[in-house]
C-alpha cells in the first residue's frame, strides 16, 4: 500500500537547517539559527512563546520561505517551496491544534489526507487496507467512529497515525501532549520513541515540558528570541540548565509562599448540571465547596465538562439544575452579584471570553467598573481621562506590554492580554476567583506572574477555583485537587497527599 509519492530515501533520515534567517518586515523572527536533527533521533526543540520555534519548523515545512538559509533533507539541499514539496520528501507535521475534521469518521479523515484520493472511494476496500495498516501500528483507533466522539488522546493518536499512513518518516510534533493525560503522553511518546529506536522514524518535537524532554529526547535545541541559545545531548543537560538557557537573564516574578489556613465556605456548588452545545449533559450533578483562603484545583483532560462548568459560573451558560451559592447567597452570575461578592474570573482564551478585541486596552481594563465613579458620573457620562489614568497605572503595575492604553487589545500578545485581564480582575479585593487554564500558551515570565498573583489572592483570603489541563500547575498551586471526568468529579484529595498515578488513572476514566 503505497500512498502519495514515494519518499526519496529509505529508513529514517535527518534534516538540517543551516543559517536560517527569517524577517517579517522589520521584525527578525529567526536570526542565523542552526538546527541539526540526526537521522533516527528524537530531537526536542525548546523555547518560549515567540522564540521562533514555530517559524523555524514552518520554514522547514515550506509554509514560510526563509529570508536566508538552507534546508538539507537526508544530507541533500532541498528547495521546499510549499507544504506539498515537504510532504513529497517524507516530512510531516502534527499541529498543536487538531487538523482532523470533527464531523467526519476517522477512516474518512485518513483517506482524505492522501494526495491521491480516488474520484470514487471504494470504502470496503479502503477499510480493509486501513485495518491492515493499523495492525502494523503501535496504537489503535476506532476507524468508524466520528472524530468528534473520540477522546483528545485518541485524536492525537489519529493525527500521528495519519502522518505514518501517509508514509512520512520525519515527523515534526508541535506540543503533541498538551491535551493528553500524563499516562497517555507517555504511551504515545513511548511508542514513537520505539519507532525511532528501530530506525523507522526521525522526530522533531516542539515542547515546553522538561519531563518529556528528559524521558524521550536524545538531543535538544534551545531558541531564545529568534536566536540559537543552546544545543546538545539531553543526557548531558539538566532541566534547570535548559530553563536558564530558554529564559536568559530575564527575572521571573517570585511566587509568595503559601500562608494562612482555609476559612469559611465561600463558593458552594450543589448538584450543578449543565448541557453542552449539542444538548448532551456535560456537567453531571457536581457538588463542591471552596473555602476562603484555599485553592481548589480541577484536573481533567479537556472536553470533560470543565469548560461548561466555568461557563455556568461566568454566566455564559445557564445551568440545567442544581444550586450555586456564594457566601451563602444564591448565585445566578448577575453583574450585581459578582460585584457584591467581589468575584473575579480568568476564563480560558481570554481574548475571546473576557475581552472585546476591537476595544482599547484601557476600555477592556475598565469593564467591571466602567459605569461607576470615577469612570462615570451619574452612571452614564463616561470620564475618558479616568479610564486612561487607571489603565496607565495598571499597565505599569502588571507589566502589560502595549504601545498605548488606546491600542486595541487584540493587537497584544497572548501573555499581555492575560495580564490585562489579570489587572482588571485582581486589582481590587477578591473574595472568589475562578480561573480556567490561565497560563495556556504563555511564556515563563507571564506564567510566573500569574501563578504569583493567584497565590497572593489565596493568601489574602480569596476562595480560588482553578480549572486547568496542566497537572503540574495544579500540583504547584492547589490546596485540594479534584479530578473531573465525563462531567463528574471522580477523585478528590489534598494536593499534598495526592497520588500522581491515581490522579492520572482517574483523568483517563479508569
Amino acid at each position, binding site marked *: 500500500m503505497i500512498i502519495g509519492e514515494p519518499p526519496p530515501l529509505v529508513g529514517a533520515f535527518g534534516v538540517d537547517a543551516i543559517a536560517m534567517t527569517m524577517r517579517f518586515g522589520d521584525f527578525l523572527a529567526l536570526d542565523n539559527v542552526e538546527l541539526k536533527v540526526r537521522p533516527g533521533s528524537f530531537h526536542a526543540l525548546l523555547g518560549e512563546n515567540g522564540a521562533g520555534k514555530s517559524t523555524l519548523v514552518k520554514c522547514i515545512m515550506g509554509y514560510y520561505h526563509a529570508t536566508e538559509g538552507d534546508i538539507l533533507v537526508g544530507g541533500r539541499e532541498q528547495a521546499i517551496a*510549499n*507544504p*506539498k514539496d515537504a*510532504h513529497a520528501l517524507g516530512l510531516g507535521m502534527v*499541529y498543536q*491544534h487538531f*487538523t*482532523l*475534521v*470533527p*464531523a*467526519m469518521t476517522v477512516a*474518512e479523515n485518513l*483517506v*482524505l*489526507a492522501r*494526495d491521491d*484520493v*480516488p*474520484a*470514487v*472511494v471504494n*470504502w470496503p476496500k479502503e477499510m480493509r487496507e486501513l485495518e491492515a495498516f493499523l495492525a502494523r501500528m503501535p496504537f489503535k483507533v476506532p476507524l468508524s467512529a466520528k472524530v468528534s466522539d473520540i477522546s483528545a488522546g485518541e485524536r492525537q493518536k489519529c493525527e500521528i497515525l495519519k502522518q505514518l499512513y501517509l508514509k512520512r518518516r520525519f515527523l515534526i510534533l508541535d506540543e503533541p501532549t498538551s491535551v493528553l493525560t500524563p499516562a497517555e503522553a507517555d504511551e504515545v511518546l513511548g511508542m514513537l520513541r520505539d519507532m525511532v529506536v528501530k530506525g523507522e522514524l526521525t522526530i522533531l518535537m516542539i515542547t515546553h515540558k522538561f519531563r518529556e524532554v528528559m524521558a524521550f529526547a536524545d538531543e535538544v535545541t534551545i531558541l531564545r528570541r529568534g536566536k540559537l541559545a543552546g544545543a546538545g545531548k539531553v543526557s548531558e543537560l539538566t532541566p534547570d540548565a535548559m530553563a536558564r538557557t530558554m529564559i536568559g537573564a530575564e527575572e521571573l516574578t517570585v511566587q509568595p509562599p503559601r500562608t494562612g489556613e482555609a476559612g469559611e465556605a465561600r463558593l458552594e456548588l450543589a448538584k450543578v448540571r449543565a*448541557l*453542552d*452545545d*449539542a*444538548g448532551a449533559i456535560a456537567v453531571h450533578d457536581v457538588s463542591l465547596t471552596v473555602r476562603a483562603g484555599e485553592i481548589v484545583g480541577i484536573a481533567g483532560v479537556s472536553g470533560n465538562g470543565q469548560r461548561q462548568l466555568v461557563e455556568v459560573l461566568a454566566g455564559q451558560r*445557564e445551568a440545567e439544575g442544581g444550586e450555586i451559592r456564594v457566601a451563602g447567597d444564591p448565585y445566578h452570575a448577575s453583574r450585581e452579584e459578582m460585584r457584591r461578592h467581589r468575584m473575579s474570573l480568568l476564563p480560558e482564551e481570554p481574548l475571546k471570553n473576557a475581552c472585546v478585541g476591537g476595544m482599547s486596552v484601557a476600555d477592556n481594563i475598565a469593564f467591571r467598573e466602567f459605569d461607576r465613579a470615577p469612570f462615570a458620573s451619574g452612571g452614564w457620562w463616561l470620564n475618558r481621562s479616568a479610564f486612561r489614568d487607571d489603565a496607565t497605572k495598571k499597565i505599569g503595575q502588571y507589566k502589560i506590554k502595549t504601545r498605548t492604553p488606546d491600542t486595541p487589545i487584540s493587537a497584544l500578545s497572548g501573555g499581555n492580554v492575560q495580564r490585562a485581564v489579570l489587572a482588571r480582575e485582581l486589582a481590587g479585593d477578591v473574595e472568589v476567583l475562578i480561573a480556567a487554564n490561565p497560563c495556556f500558551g504563555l511564556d515563563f515570565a507571564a506564567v510566573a506572574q500569574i501563578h504569583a498573583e493567584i497565590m497572593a489572592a489565596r493568601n489574602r483570603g480569596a476562595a480560588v477555583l482553578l480549572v486547568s489541563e496542566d497537572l503540574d500547575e495544579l500540583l504547584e498551586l492547589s490546596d485540594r485537587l479534584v479530578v473531573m471526568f465525563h462531567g463528574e468529579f471522580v477523585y478528590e484529595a489534598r494536593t499534598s497527599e495526592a497520588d500522581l498515578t491515581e490522579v492520572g488513572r482517574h483523568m483517563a476514566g479508569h
Partner: protein
Amino acid sequence: MADGSIGLWTVPLAVLGGAIRVSTPFLFVSLGECITERSGRINLGLEGTLVMGAMSAYGISYLTGSPWLGVLAAGITGALLGALHAGICSLPRVNDVAVGIALMLFGTGLAFYLGKPLIEPTAPRLPAIDFGWWSDIPQLRAALRVNVLFLIGVVLAPILYWAFRTTRWGLLIRTAGESSDAARAMGHSVLLIRLRATMVGGFLAGIGGSFLSLFYPGSWNEGLSSGQGITAVALVIFARWDPLLCLWASLAFGGAAALGPALQSVGVTSGYHLFNAAPYILTLAIMIVTCSPKRTLTGAPAELSITR
C-alpha cells in the same frame, strides 16, 4: 359537483399532484444550496438565480424552440451568478450573507429588465410523463402527470447523498465546510472548493428557475417566483444539510402549498388565503419545534457564518 364520483378524494390527490409540481423548484434550489452550504458558505442570492434562470430558460426556449436548451441556459446562468457570489466572497472581509442579499436583488432586477420582451411570446414547454394512463379518473391522471425535471431531482438527491460520502469531491466539500484549517493543512484551496460548490449550487438553482417558466406556471412574468429561492435556503436548514431530507422537505412544502388551491377546488373557500399560508406556517412550526437557544444545530457545517 362535476367530479362527484370521487368526492373529497380530490383534496389528497390535488395535494399529491401539487406536491410534485410545486416542490420541483424547491428541490433543485435546496439541493444546490445544500452543496454550497456543505462547503461552508451560504448563498442567499439563489432567489435572484432562480428568477434569472426562469427568464433565461424562457428566452432560450423561445429563441431555439428547444426547452432543454432553455434548461441548460438556465443552469449556466445560475453557475455564472454562483461564480460571481463566490468571487466576491473570496475577497477578504466580505460577508457571504450580505453578498447573497445583494445578488438576490441584482438577479431579480436584471431578470425583469432583460425579460421585458418575453412577457408576450409563448415558448415551448418541458414535457411531462403520464404515469396515470391506467386510470380513467381525471383527477388521478392529472396528479400523476409528472414532469421530467422532478424525476431528475428525485434521482439527484440520493446521488448527492452518496457522493458526499464516497467521492473525492464530496469529501473535499465537506472538509472545506467543516474545517477550513484542515482543508488548508492538506494543501487544498478552500476558496476554489467553495467557488466550485457555489457554481454547482447556482447551476441547480438556475434549473429550478427554468421549471417555473417552462412547466409550472409555465410562462414568464415578474410575479413568477414568490420567494421559493429564499424559502429553499430555509429548507436546507431544517433538512439538516442532508440531500435526502431536502427531498422530503421539498415534498412536504410543495404539498402544503397545494393545500389552498385543492380545498378551493372542492368548494372550501372561506379560509383560502389562510390555507395558502400553510407552507409558511409549516416553516414557522418546524423552526419552533426544532430550534433551541441552548444547543447548536446538529449537522450544521462548522464553517458556516451562521453557526460560527
